[in-house]
């Protein structure tokens, strides 16, 4: 599965994307955030306040309780500030 990070989430983690093998217990977007937060200091910093982080599965917005089964690409980013 491909993970992509944007804006300050990308800066805190220190890379724009990565390929990852997930444990079966990681079922939802929220699960994935807490699993990632345990991968080291930089990830912990990026996900220290998961409530503010937005996510997209295969390029569509999703809520934290969304199931990640079958996802090819999951992105994490701060609230958007376009326009």
């Amino acid at each position, binding site marked *: 599965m491909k993970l992509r990070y944007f*804006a300050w989430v990308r800066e805190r983690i220190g890379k724009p994307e990565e390929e990852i093998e997930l444990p079966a217990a990681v079922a939802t977007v929220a699960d994935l955030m807490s699993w990632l937060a345990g991968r080291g200091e930089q990830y912990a910093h990026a996900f220290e306040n998961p409530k503010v982080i937005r996510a*997209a599965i295969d390029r569509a917005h999703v809520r934290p309780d969304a199931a990640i089964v079958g996802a090819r690409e999951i992105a994490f980013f701060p609230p958007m500030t376009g*326009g």
Partner: protein
Amino acid sequence: MSATVRLQRDPFDAATEAAKLSRGRTDIGAVVTFTGICRGDESGRPLEAMTLEHYPDMAEAEIARHVEAAGRRWPLLGVTVIHRFGRLTPGEDIVLVITAAAHRQDAFAAAEFLMDYLKTRAPFWKQVEYAGGKTGSQQPGNEKIWVDAKQSDDALADRWSKPPGRREAAE
């Protein structure tokens, strides 16, 4: 409805894009053109530049979805959305929304709807750059800060999620 969605680093010309929508047509009675421009200050502090990061594959699809939604909601005859990315300096254009319809109310409302959604749902992130860097900072160069999302922008986008009938009755 003809729809154009473009993401680009280069500048755009609003007048040219508006003319493209209405040229040679007699069914269009109203064209609304909105241009968002990079201001020279943020909260009273002079700005050196603004950099827009985006999620390329998603941004185009997400904007196209909202253009379609606008087309279902109002009888539009044409829509153009152009969003720039990369480093922009004060005075440069950031975003262009053009809506064409037979009547002005539909064109105005759809342009506002699209802008409210671009602000809160299109995967773009603004980083502002202040001259000189933080006083006493070890880091050379300009100070760069990610812009926080505004709650007021969320409220503006939320007003469109109510059914049209109820919304008008409430106003």
